[in-house]
């Protein structure tokens, strides 16, 4: 019997070996695949197991985390929800993340390998570090000035520091409270459905994700192209543009809202916003050089990231001359994000050197040690320095003696440009009021701020006046907040 007992024992040993091999198969060889199975909730649970790092504005956190005691423990809270929603985005357990919450998720959730004390540390320990913080470039007073200035109307404000590219304000209204999307369950799904169904589209980040026809504010770009291409050598010399102007190759005439535009100089055309002169100049510069010039400002660049992706501002690259003429005054297919137009103003203010816009100043580990510092870097030389000087003077004229007088600040050098964009079939839609500007303290060598404001429901539709009337005061409030130190 002993022999058979031994064989039975060998059979039991076989069973044991089978179990051990199978355990090794699952726990070592198939583990990664099983860990990453989307139906495996462990990654999600681990993710919310610790409080998320915070997003800081002016040294103070605008976010928080609260322990709900549920399986997904920590939910995101927002201290000034709607005000900073266009900056932070949301971090939802149900709907994922957007904007900075998305772009810096690795730091905020603690998974970024930069947070680990040693390379591969997280891989070996299968753990994660406490979430780090993200310090933004936003200035609280400017953000509030822009938000209050829009006062619930649909619109957006983007403000950048021309010399560095730091984004100082990024506002989109109407906004929403991202905290409503933080957790799980029906309150969150209801809020999500309500926000998505709302006609005012509160979750749309109009400052970077929505493009508008830039209207007359685009004339700054056309002017820069004309000066750089030496189509215009003396901005104060008269041009040979008739008013009204017949679009090339058509019988359509382009009128002006302003008077005195016949044969007006470039400076005059900017000051009172002559459509005819600028459309004609665009055609004279020609499609190739226009496309090249707008590209230096950031148009047609779909890869701009601040670090969230910015919608591509469009200037068609294949157009007939009449289309080019309309495009040169910011109509036809030309569209721009508010951030793009703030970059246009910043390029002018900064002597033509356009800095790469960025919203994150630096990221830090949980204990405050800097993980990564976002330095200022050049994006493009948008125009020659002399062209920038000439445009600065022309933009100052707009504020001091033209359509942008509502943006004037006592004792400060302010340059601006108004715009009103018609849109919709037969221009039936509510026009967009634009204002782009920059401001520089006389005793400072560098401009303090460049701003772009767009208001969707401009009360008046007369060209440029509405830009000056609706948008310019908001820009002034934002610039004043910037100059206040």
């Amino acid at each position, binding site marked *: *019997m*002993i*022999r*058979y*007992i*031994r*064989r*039975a*024992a060998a*059979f*039991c*040993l076989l*069973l*044991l070996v*089978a*179990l*051990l091999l*199978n*355990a*090794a198969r*699952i*726990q*070592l060889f*198939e*583990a*990664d*695949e*099983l*860990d990453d*199975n*989307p*139906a*495996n*909730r*462990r990654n999600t*649970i681990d993710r919310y197991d610790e409080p998320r790092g915070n997003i800081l504005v002016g040294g103070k956190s605008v976010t928080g985390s609260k322990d709900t005691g549920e399986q997904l423990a920590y939910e995101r809270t927002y201290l000034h929800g709607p005000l900073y929603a266009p900056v932070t985005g949301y971090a939802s357990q149900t709907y994922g993340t957007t904007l900075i919450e998305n772009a810096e998720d690795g730091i905020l959730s603690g998974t970024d390998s930069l947070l680990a004390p040693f390379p591969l540390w997280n891989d070996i320990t*299968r753990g994660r570090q406490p979430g780090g913080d993200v310090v933004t470039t936003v200035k609280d007073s400017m953000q509030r000035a822009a938000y209050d200035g829009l006062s619930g109307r649909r619109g957006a404000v983007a403000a950048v520091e021309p010399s560095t590219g730091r984004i100082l304000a990024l506002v989109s209204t109407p906004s929403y409270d991202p905290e409503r999307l933080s957790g799980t369950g029906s309150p969150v799904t209801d809020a999500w459905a309500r926000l998505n169904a709302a006609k005012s589209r509160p979750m749309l980040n109009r400052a970077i994700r929505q493009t508008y026809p830039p209207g007359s504010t685009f004339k700054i770009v056309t002017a820069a192209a004309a000066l750089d291409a030496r189509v215009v050598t003396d901005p104060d010399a008269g041009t040979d543009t008739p008013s009204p102007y017949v679009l090339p190759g058509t019988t359509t005439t382009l009128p002006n809202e302003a008077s005195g535009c016949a044969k007006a100089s470039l400076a005059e055309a900017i000051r009172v916003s002559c459509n005819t002169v600028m459309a004609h100049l665009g055609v004279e510069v020609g499609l190739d050089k226009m496309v090249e010039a707008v590209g230096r400002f950031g148009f047609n660049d779909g890869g701009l990231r601040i670090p969230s992706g910015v919608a591509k501002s469009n200037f068609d690259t294949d157009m007939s001359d009449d289309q080019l003429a309309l495009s040169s005054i910011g109509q036809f297919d030309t569209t721009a994000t508010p951030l793009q137009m703030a970059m246009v103003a910043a390029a002018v203010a900064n002597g033509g050197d356009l800095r790469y816009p960025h919203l994150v100043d630096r990221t830090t580990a949980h204990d405050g040690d800097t993980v990564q510092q976002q330095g200022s870097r050049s994006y493009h030389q948008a125009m020659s320095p002399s062209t920038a000087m000439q445009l600065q003077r022309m933009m100052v004229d707009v504020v001091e003696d033209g359509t942008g007088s509502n943006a004037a600040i006592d004792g400060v050098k302010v340059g601006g440009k108004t715009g009103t964009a018609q849109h919709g079939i037969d221009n039936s839609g509510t026009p967009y009021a634009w204002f782009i500007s920059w401001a520089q303290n006389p005793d400072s060598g560098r401009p303090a701020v460049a701003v772009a404001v767009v208001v969707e429901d401009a009360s008046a539709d007369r060209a440029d006046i509405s830009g000056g009337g609706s948008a310019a005061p908001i820009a002034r409030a934002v610039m004043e907040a910037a100059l206040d130190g």
Partner: protein
Amino acid sequence: MTPSTADAPPPELRLPKRRGVELCLLVGAVLISVYGYANVGLARNGAVPPDVAGYGGGLGLLALLAHLAVRFRAPYADPLLLPIAVLLNGLGLVLIYRLDLETPKDQAAPTQLIWSTLGVALFIAVVVLLRDHRVLQRYAYLSVATALALMIVPIFFPAVNGAKIWIRIGGLSFQPGEFAKILLAVFFAAYLAANRNALAYTGRRIWKLQLPTGRVLGPIVAIWLLSVGVLVLERDLGTSLLFFGLFVIMLYVATGRTGWIAVGLLLAAVGAFVVGSFEPHVHSRVQDWLDPFASIDAGRGPSQLAQSLFAFAAGGMLGTGLGLGHSVLIGFAAKSDFILATAGEELGLSGLTAVFLLYALLVARGYRAGLALRDPFGRLLSIGLASILALQVFVIAGGVMGLIPLTGMAMPFLAQGGSSVVTNWIIVALLIRVSDVARRPHPDQVETGVIAPVLEDER
């Protein structure tokens, strides 16, 4: 030959009792369990659980009482059996306590501690009252009658989670099939010890297979039909597989006829295929085994088996640490059938291997007692009891790890389940008893000073 003094008395040859070793190992087993208990509290709440002293004291007291029973009534028993049982039971309590933290409304650890106490009490009772295992041989037919009755009774009770293996009286519920295991092993051992020559040598020969006569073959067919019957009526593939495997192993050991294994495997395969194909509850288990992720692809979320695999995977080599895994995602059976997934996730492959080796040691010690015993009944009984543990571990561990189709069965000592833990304590008590007989010095040996296993049967 070593030179020895001519007039010196022959050296007194005594098998060491090893009771001191057993006590040391018991202290170790209790300390490891207490450490695990404290570990869970530290990991979850940053503090040692307030009742850790009570837990450790309780477990220690149970271990001490069991040890004293063994020391005085089975002094030659294998010193590894009791410490392994205490360690596995202690670890099981830790795992259940740990899972209780996730389900505040369903506290299973206190109940399990009560059942464990009852199990140890029965252990002591068996060790104290059963002086010689051969007594059981006399009750073979009473055993099988009781076993059959116990297995049939649950048919008249409503199904719980798809299997009709429970008896519910008031708030208490238990699985009579668990107790039936022991009784069946006793019956098999007695029947086979009595009939093994008839089974091996009589009857007609067909091709290479020596068929026994119908008189001795009858019980085999009866057992097979019974196991399939239990499975169909109670939807319990695990128990039928266990009974069948147990019978085949014992039959093989008793007769040494390899043909029985072939017949057994064939019958098992046919039975399993038929039932797996037509019984919907079992069929779904087989489908789940073939593709654990089908329900995910179908948008119905992960199945229990998929959740179990996720848990094992999350453990990796070293595990997440006690209290830090998420095996509670498995759902309702996390504390019972799927308790091994918690061990796999929180202790990792290393801890799981240790657990498997503890079981292997328990089984090996049962087999060792069988090897050393002289009477065929005792041999078959110890092999049978050890095989119950081995098969049970394989069936449930293989099931929750996707090696074989999942069948409801309790991991011995680890899983939540009163009937199971009590039954396993009785099994260990019987193993203690047989190992005590196996290691006890034979009167002849003491007199002659010869230590050699007396092999009454070397065939």
